[in-house]
């Protein structure tokens, strides 16, 4: 069966829209301010941390359209933020509303792309990758407050797109399309015990987040270089799933982790090496999600929540403790990447590619 490009690309755009809105508010409204640290840290905690409980909620209430409602809630939160006029109560209130909307849309994207994937990883990978382009676009828009209206236009288009995708999926899979209890996900990447698989893949995500988010990049000094960095991250996430469907998830996951090591270690001042390292390291994103869905086929929302909880646990330390010196950082990259590769090697079945391969 061919990949469902409409759902994958559609949710990549919706993910892009969400990040544009979030980061234009973060950079354009909250920064700089007295509570910038708290707002940025809480954004990270709530946006990532809410996804596991929301995953449970929308597995239960599976006709709730979290994508459409999430985008509407996100827009309301952003509007409050733009009108907050530096009022701290309104800023924190808007942050909570924005992160709730953000988490709802992420869960909707995960459920929709996993529903249509038929065992492939491409759809989820394309959806996840779209966010990186949104982060950089939101940062650029946020730098100029006169452009505040652009994220709202993009979000309006995303709402229409979410409605169309929802209708399309229900037309194809019936009224109970999102009742994963009745029709579980067909992902079968893992043949290992549930608990140990969840733990190992969770740690792999933690490692990727810690290194990916905290890695010092001395070469990154201009806007164009930052755009390139985020673009390569997005391309890496997208291509990881697509390559896994072609060559096998284990092969791509392990090789991408190991290939990234020398690129990241020797790349502090070499832009292209660093970009390739970041792209390679990001490739495991969809593979870890696919592995988790394999052991929790009736709970794709929770499986996605495990990955975001891993992202949270990998990034939160960076808000409190600076990344150590470059030499310590290099040692950490080597050790953590090798352990992540070993974890993927253990968990992911070598025979599995996409369902259609």
């Amino acid at each position, binding site marked *: 069966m061919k990949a469902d490009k409409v759902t994958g690309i559609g949710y990549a755009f919706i993910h892009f829209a969400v990040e544009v809105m979030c980061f234009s508010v973060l950079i354009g409204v909250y920064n700089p301010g007295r509570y910038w640290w708290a707002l940025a840290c809480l954004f990270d*905690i709530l946006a990532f941390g809410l996804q596991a409980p929301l995953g449970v909620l929308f597995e239960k209430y599976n006709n709730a359209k979290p994508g459409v409602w999430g985008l509407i809630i996100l827009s309301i939160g952003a509007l409050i933020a733009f009108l907050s006029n530096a009022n701290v109560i309104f800023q924190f209130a808007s942050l909570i509303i924005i992160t709730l909307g953000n988490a709802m849309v992420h869960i909707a994207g995960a459920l929709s792309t996993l529903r249509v994937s038929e065992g492939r990883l491409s759809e989820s990978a394309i959806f996840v990758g779209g966010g990186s382009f949104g982060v950089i676009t939101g940062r650029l828009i946020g730098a100029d407050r006169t452009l505040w209206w652009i994220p709202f236009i993009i979000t309006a288009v995303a709402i229409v797109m979410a409605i169309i995708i929802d209708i399309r999926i229900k037309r194809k899979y019936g009224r109970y399309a999102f009742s994963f209890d009745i029709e579980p996900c067909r992902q079968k990447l893992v043949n290992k015990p549930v608990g140990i698989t969840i733990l190992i893949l969770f740690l792999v995500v933690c490692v990727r987040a810690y290194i990916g988010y905290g890695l010092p990049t001395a070469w990154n000094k201009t806007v164009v270089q930052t755009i390139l960095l985020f673009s390569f991250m997005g391309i890496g996430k997208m291509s990881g799933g697509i390559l896994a469907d072609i060559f096998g998830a284990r092969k791509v996951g392990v090789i991408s982790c190991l290939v990234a090591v020398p690129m990241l270690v020797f790349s502090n001042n070499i832009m292209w090496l660093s970009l390739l390292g970041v792209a390679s390291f990001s490739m495991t994103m969809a593979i870890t999600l696919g592995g988790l869905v394999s052991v929790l086929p*009736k709970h794709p929302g929770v499986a996605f929540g495990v990955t975001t909880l891993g992202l949270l646990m990998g990034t939160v330390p960076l808000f409190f403790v600076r990344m150590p010196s470059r030499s310590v950082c290099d040692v950490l990259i080597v050790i953590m990447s090798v352990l992540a590769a070993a974890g993927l090697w253990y968990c992911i079945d070598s025979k599995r590619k996409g369902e259609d391969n």
Partner: protein
Amino acid sequence: MNLILDVIDAGVPAEGNGTTGIVIAVVVVLAVLVAVGAFCIVKASKKKKDE
């Protein structure tokens, strides 16, 4: 990604942008969400084992 680096470069929370109360509040929110998330994961994986 670089949002975090920007925040860290700004030298917070040590330089006054986050008071002790705010840091404690942030840690409490983090602990609650991690606990709820872990509960959801354990419950889902137990259900799978029972099957």
